[in-house]
């Protein structure tokens, strides 16, 4: 016992310079944190936090229950073992990522909440597990994920392959759902921060203050859990938990119009120490455009180069595990001052937009526009659309045009919706010609729902979740396929299988669609009026069926009738 705890202590000490990520034999779990700051040409600044916990244990082993949790959060571990989850990806996003202005994000996410889960193939009732899982996650993250049910869950057949280990192809064990209407606020950030080993008390997480984080153009927090290989030969498996937080601070709202950013201005805190439980704690600043665009202080000799998203970028590295990083004031406050106007940003190679066309509340058309900005290479993209059942898609009106010519998709998987049971799922593999714009249009009809099925503000409209465009984009720079231990976290999120391309997932805008509404104040009136009309029909037919024609004899006035009654009793002849 003493030996293992001693080894555990060694692994958490500030480790050797440069080789910080060398795993000590016998260590069970390990935690790394990193922050990447990328200044953008428009004057905004993009900060991406990643916190990774690696733990070699097996949650899904039969019989053995994992009970000793250290760095890995117990709530998530219990969720994994109870529901036999192989991979879990959940993200909460406020705002929409503007690819044309900000480039590609390290970890893409759609507006609202998104949850996709690969279950283990031993699960017999995937839908039951999914329902319970969404409710449990709803409690863990204080979000209304309980709105995820079968009416907005789909099983994509090709778009969401596992990002971790495993060669699963049976998409019956995959579930994907998105809640575009979900709002992210402090309530969701606090439980997310609690999952970190150091909480928000030490390390990079001290910067996560909600007043500043939510005063931004884009805020996305995510949790990704997947099984990974521990080494190049993949002799043993480990569970990886990554918590990522992407935030883009706007020049005008958060930056007060001055193109000068610092950690204090962004987060109202500075860094004072690394998390003691972390084996590596680093801050990377993207200085590829330095010194033309901006200047960075304090300067640092540590530089690192990485090929990420098809581009070779240079980073200044601030290692928080070394005491000299903090200087004399014992605090690190990075300052970035813009010098010139910059130039043009490198255009992202893949970009997508979506909008609704048409007028009136009866029909409409969904247009998805995908741009391929590569000058000479064509590549295929997989487009996945999940449309709610109350917008009835007409697949025979599906048209795909590139450069004003018909472009037939080579693979179409379409699952039509069943009213009130499941949504539409459309997946297509489209070949994008080089330097072109491809437009996918499909017509739909809007349904009239029952009055109880409308949201509290029905004239706000109904949200349609983002489309997902997944592609292997040809890279101008050779990607690094080697598995190295000291790779920065931001370049190792998506596994790189080949040198010539990198994986990109682009989310389009969610749509807001109006449906025709009945008058909500009228249920009783409608029931009465319709039943009246039916009763008029019934009454007329009843009269004609049960009565016969008779000659109308006038009846005696009342006085004479009473007199006749008395006369009948007396036995005297009646009046006429």
């Amino acid at each position, binding site marked *: 016992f003493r030996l293992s705890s001693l080894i555990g202590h060694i692994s958490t000490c500030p480790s050797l310079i440069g080789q910080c990520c060398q795993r000590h034999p016998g260590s069970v779990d390990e935690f790394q944190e990193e922050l990447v700051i990328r200044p953008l040409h428009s004057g905004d600044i993009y900060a991406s936090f990643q916190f990774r916990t690696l733990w070699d244990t097996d949650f899904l082993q039969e019989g053995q229950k994992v009970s000793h949790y250290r760095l890995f959060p117990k709530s998530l571990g219990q969720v994994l073992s109870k529901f036999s989850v192989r991979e879990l990806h959940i993200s909460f996003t406020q705002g929409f990522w503007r690819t044309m202005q900000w480039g590609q994000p390290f970890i893409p996410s759609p507006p609202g909440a998104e949850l996709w889960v690969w279950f283990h193939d031993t699960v017999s009732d995937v839908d039951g597990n999914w329902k319970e899982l969404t409710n449990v996650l709803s409690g863990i993250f204080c979000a209304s994920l309980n709105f995820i049910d079968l009416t907005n869950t789909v099983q994509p057949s090709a778009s969401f392959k596992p990002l971790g280990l495993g060669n699963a192809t049976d998409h019956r064990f995959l579930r994907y759902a998105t809640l575009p209407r979900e709002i992210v606020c402090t309530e969701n950030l606090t439980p997310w921060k609690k999952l970190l080993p150091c909480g928000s008390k030490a390390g990079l997480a001290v910067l996560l203050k909600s007043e500043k984080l939510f005063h931004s153009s884009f805020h996305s927090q995510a949790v990704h859990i997947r099984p990974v290989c521990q080494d190049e030969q993949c002799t043993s498996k480990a569970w990886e938990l990554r918590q990522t937080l992407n935030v883009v601070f706007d020049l005008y709202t958060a930056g007060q119009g001055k193109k000068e950013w610092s950690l204090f201005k962004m987060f109202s805190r500075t860094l004072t120490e690394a998390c003691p439980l972390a084996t590596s704690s680093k801050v990377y600043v993207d200085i590829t455009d330095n010194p033309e665009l901006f200047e960075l202080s304090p300067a640092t000799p540590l530089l690192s180069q990485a090929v990420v998203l098809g581009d070779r970028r240079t980073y200044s590295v601030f290692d928080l595990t070394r005491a000299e990083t903090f200087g004399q004031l014992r605090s690190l406050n990075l300052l970035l001052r813009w010098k010139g106007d910059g130039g043009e940003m490198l255009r992202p190679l893949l970009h997508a937009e979506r909008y609704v066309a048409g007028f009136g509340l009866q029909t409409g058309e969904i247009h998805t526009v995908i741009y391929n900005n590569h000058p000479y290479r064509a590549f295929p993209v997989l487009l996945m659309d999940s449309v709610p059942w109350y917008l009835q898609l*007409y697949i025979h009106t599906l048209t795909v045009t590139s450069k004003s010519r018909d472009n037939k998709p080579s693979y179409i998987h379409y699952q*039509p*919706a069943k009213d009130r049971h499941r949504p539409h799922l459309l997946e297509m593999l489209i070949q994008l010609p080089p330097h072109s714009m491809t437009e996918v249009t499909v017509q739909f009809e809007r349904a009239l*729902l029952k009055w109880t099925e409308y949201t509290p503000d029905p004239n706000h409209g109904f949200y349609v979740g983002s489309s997902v465009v997944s592609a292997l984009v040809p890279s101008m720079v050779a990607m690094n396929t080697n598995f190295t231990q000291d790779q920065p976290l931001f370049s190792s999120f998506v596994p790189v299988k080949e040198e010539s391309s990198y994986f990109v997932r682009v989310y389009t805008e969610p749509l807001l669609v109006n449906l*025709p509404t*009945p008058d909500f104040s009228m249920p009783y009136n409608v029931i009465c009026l*319709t039943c009246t009309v039916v009763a008029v029909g019934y009454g007329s037919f009843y009269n004609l*069926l049960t009565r016969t024609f008779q*000659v109308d004899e006038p009846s005696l006035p009342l006085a004479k009738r009473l007199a006749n009654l008395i006369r009948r009793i007396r036995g005297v002849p009646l009046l006429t």
Partner: protein
Amino acid sequence: MAAPLTLLLIVAVTIRAVLFRSSWAELISERVEVVSPLNAWKRVVEGLALLDLGVSPYSGDVFHETPFMIYLFHFVVDYAEIVFMIADGITAVALYLSIQTYNKNVFRKQKYALESDRYPADCLELLRSPKEMFYIPLKVAMFYLLNPFTILSCVAKSTCGLNNAIIALFILCTLKGSALLSGILLALATYQSIYPLTLFAPALLFFLQRLYIPVNLRRSSFWFFTLQYAFIYVGSLVVITGLSFFLLGSWDFIPSVYGFIFSVPDLTPNIGLFWYFFAEMFEHFRLFFICVFQINVFFYTIPLSIKLKEHPVFLIFMQIAIISIFKSYPTVGDVALYMAFLPAWSHLYRFLRNIFLVSCVLLACSALFPVLWHLWIYAGSANSNFYYAITLLFNFGQILLVSDYFYAYLRREHHLTHGLYLKKKDGTEATLVLK
């Protein structure tokens, strides 16, 4: 009479062809009064496209036609316009021939009754003459072919036209006396939409009347024929349903077609009473009111059959009208079918009480439907209540029309047995009331 009928057919086909080629065709095929989720052409094309993609058309909730339609349109989808024009022509010719046969029957019975002195002396002016009856079949065909409702339904390529053709052929076979064909066609009509089931009773009554079998539940001859006819009907229905199973290899079409008709899950506005009622229904009572509304369609069959057992053709008219008014997804094509019969009862004109009001209501509503739909859906200045009100009024007008003709028919029958100029006990002129 063949020449005027041919001329009528040519005029009708020309009007439809002109409208098919104009820009109005697109507009008309989207109107909710003309197409419903059950018989829209867009959904037929969608179902065939799904079949091409390898997905069963019944796996989603967009296609609600029977497999017979898939089978038919799989081959003729490129000639759809011609198919619908031919269907309209078949309906018109079938109605023409059946009304001609009916008139002959009526005149023959009238002649026998006159010879056996069964009519009172003063109702000779109620009797029908061949001169008056000569143009009635042509008028019936004209009322069907040139009715704007029928033209709209044909231009929209609503499969209601095909259903009408099957029902018209059924009426023709019944009136010609062929029980086998009548049973088969009735089974086909029931298979297409369930409501023609109620036409079993009038067809049975007609055959019993034709074969001089008295309608007496105690006599074996009655049961013998009823069982024969029922056997033909149910047998054909089973065979047709079985063949549908083999087309796609599954029973999916039963909940998709018949389950859809009965449980009304789709609340797309139409000219009927169901959609808004069930859009505003409390969830707790939904099943109860579905049952009530569906029973309402079938409920009038037995009482009407008892009252009109001597007059099965008028009973067919009444049943078709009741189906068109109270079915779950009515369209103007269904209305056009029973309106085609109205010239056959033109001799009842003197006894109709509300005909002016009814025709004004129906005309006004037909004009207001598109206006209020536009105001609700496109302009946004009205809401669903406006369109609902016109729906109520339109159905009310139809109910008044049908009950008015029923009243007039019964009154004429009463006069034919009791005399036209009735007198009270003291000899003054009497008024006739229903008591």
